């Protein structure tokens, strides 16, 4: 974060005695004029969250009132227990967390192994395999979802029920390794100096040891980025769970919430209480690891440039 542009420019202009009276008057404001823009913008960004929270503690009659009641007469926390009583949100939360965490771990292991091999080893078929992986990166999920559904169904019936339709395993296995993750880590590994790895090899370390002991410690920023992006993707995924899971106790939060909305479409207080409960864990994770999430998203943006 370098110094800001506006004050620096203002200083220069004054020093070069180009400063107009208007500029000077503006600089005498006790606060930056940008606050006048940012405060309304921030209110607009925050307002949906605030209104969500307010509605979640209102009574049904307060929600069904026009004009809307901006300040509830009493804080009705019973909405939360009522919502919990009519749908297993704790279960949804646990399912979401299990799916996201296991997917992240699988991706870190599988994409590291594959990305490293594509970056450093010469083996038969490397170029062809890598080309196939890159091709899948470009295809939208909608093209593959129908066969993915059929394959998952078949696997559940003939191989292992835990990865079949209607099990949370079905939400993990198809995303256990991603083309993006392999590509991303391969690009990263190629930027590392190979000398450390070579000297470790000369000392007699196996290739796996070199990867684990020498390369991975240098790769923590890239791994953190991949973990953050995979986590966000998995947590917010909706279309695939909607297709693959129908029984309530296997649902993740977005799907559980959508199903709950279908059943309680006009009980706004319950719906908003459920929504708050679905939001808070992710907001908490997001703010605790804000640096990683922000850096990861910024990194994809900058990498794309």
């Amino acid at each position, binding site marked *: *974060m*370098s*110094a*800001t*542009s*506006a004050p620096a*420019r203002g200083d*220069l*202009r004054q020093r*070069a005695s180009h400063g107009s009276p208007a500029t000077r008057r503006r600089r005498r404001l006790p606060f*930056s004029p*940008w*606050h006048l*823009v*940012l405060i309304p913008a921030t209110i607009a*960004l*925050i307002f*949906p*969250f605030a*209104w*969500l929270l307010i*509605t979640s503690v209102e009574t049904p009659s307060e929600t*069904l*009132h026009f*004009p*809307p009641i901006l300040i509830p007469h009493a804080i009705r926390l019973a909405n939360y227990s009522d919502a919990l009583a009519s749908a297993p949100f704790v279960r949804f939360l646990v399912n979401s967390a299990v799916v996201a965490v296991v997917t992240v771990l699988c991706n870190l292991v599988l994409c590291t*192994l*594959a990305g490293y091999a594509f970056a450093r*080893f*010469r*083996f038969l078929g490397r170029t062809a395999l890598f080309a*196939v*992986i890159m091709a*899948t990166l470009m*295809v*939208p999920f*909608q*093209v*593959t979802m*129908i066969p993915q559904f059929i394959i998952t169904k078949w696997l559940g019936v003939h191989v292992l029920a835990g990865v079949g339709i209607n099990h949370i395993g079905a939400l993990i*296995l198809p995303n256990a*390794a991603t083309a993006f993750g*392999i590509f991303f880590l391969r690009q990263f590994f190629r930027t590392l100096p190979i000398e450390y790895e070579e000297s470790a090899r000369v000392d*007699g370390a196996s*290739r796996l040891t070199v990867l684990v002991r020498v390369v991975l410690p240098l790769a923590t920023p890239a791994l953190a980025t991949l973990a953050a992006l995979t986590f966000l993707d998995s947590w*917010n995924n909706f*279309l695939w769970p909607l*297709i693959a899971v129908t029984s309530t106790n296997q649902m993740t939060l977005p799907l559980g*919430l*959508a199903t709950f*909305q279908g059943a309680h479409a006009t009980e*706004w207080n319950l719906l908003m209480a459920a*929504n708050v409960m679905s*939001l808070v864990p992710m907001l908490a994770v*997001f703010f605790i690891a804000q640096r990683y*999430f*922000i850096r990861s998203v*910024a990194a994809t*943006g900058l990498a*794309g440039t």
Partner: protein
Amino acid sequence: MTANTVARPGPRQAGRAGLVRRALDSEQFNGWAFVTPGVAVILLFGAAPIVWSAVMSFQKSSLFGSSAFVGLANYRKMAHDPVVAQAIQHTLIYTALFVPGTMIVGLFLAVAMNRKIRGISIYRTAAYATMAISTISEAIVFIWLFDPSYGIVNYAFSKVGLPQQQFLNSPSEALYVIVAMTIWGWTGFAVVVYLAALQGVPQSLLEAAAIDGAGPWRTFRRVTLPLLSPATLFLAVWLTINALQLFDEVYLSTQGGPLNATTVLVYYLYNQAFEQFNFGYASAIAYFLFLVIIVVTVIQFRVGRRFTYYRS
């Protein structure tokens, strides 16, 4: 350490054990061993389905029934399906509004937030928070905000003397409500990308422009904006790909209605595949969507290249 490795067979002891050991240590073996688990997942769930759904798009296949080849029948059906025409129209209108809208909001906020003033971290956090909310949570909140009878937006409208609106219940307004909710949901992402790019703009160039007598607006137009062009191109492409795949918000808020007013391509595809179980027809639509994405992305890169400045 090397002195103690007596147990290891040296080159002179190259018996069968040595051969096996060397094979186990080769780039061939390790390469395949390392890539196999990850690549297997991608081949099974990513690559094979691409081919399979291409085949299915030439078949009349469903979840239960047999699959017979029908040639181009699915594609011909698509060309004459009025809902597909509507879906294409809605998808393009949505994309044309959502992508520039998000980019303008994101650029404006990022420029405003790219300075060290009091409370800046609060402002930034407010924008980032929209990234943590799932599409489903976002859609539920916005359905409530825009509720025709009890919604707070209609209340605000009545306060400023505007007529009450039906919003998501109105065929002429529903799509625009979805545009609004998704712009809000993507604001944080656009702000992060633009803020990162803004922080890469060298201070010296801005100062040079100021010395040459350029005002703040001209400096922004002529120096900052061109330096942001790679981020702009990235956002344009990324947001477009996501916009063409709009589904979650439509599924939750309108189910494609009212009167198909919000039926977008992916919603119709989902409907055909998993509500009507016309896998063949749905696959044809999916491939059409793929084609649209490729064409639009290629055009964006072609056009974008002319306006993009890379410093390195």
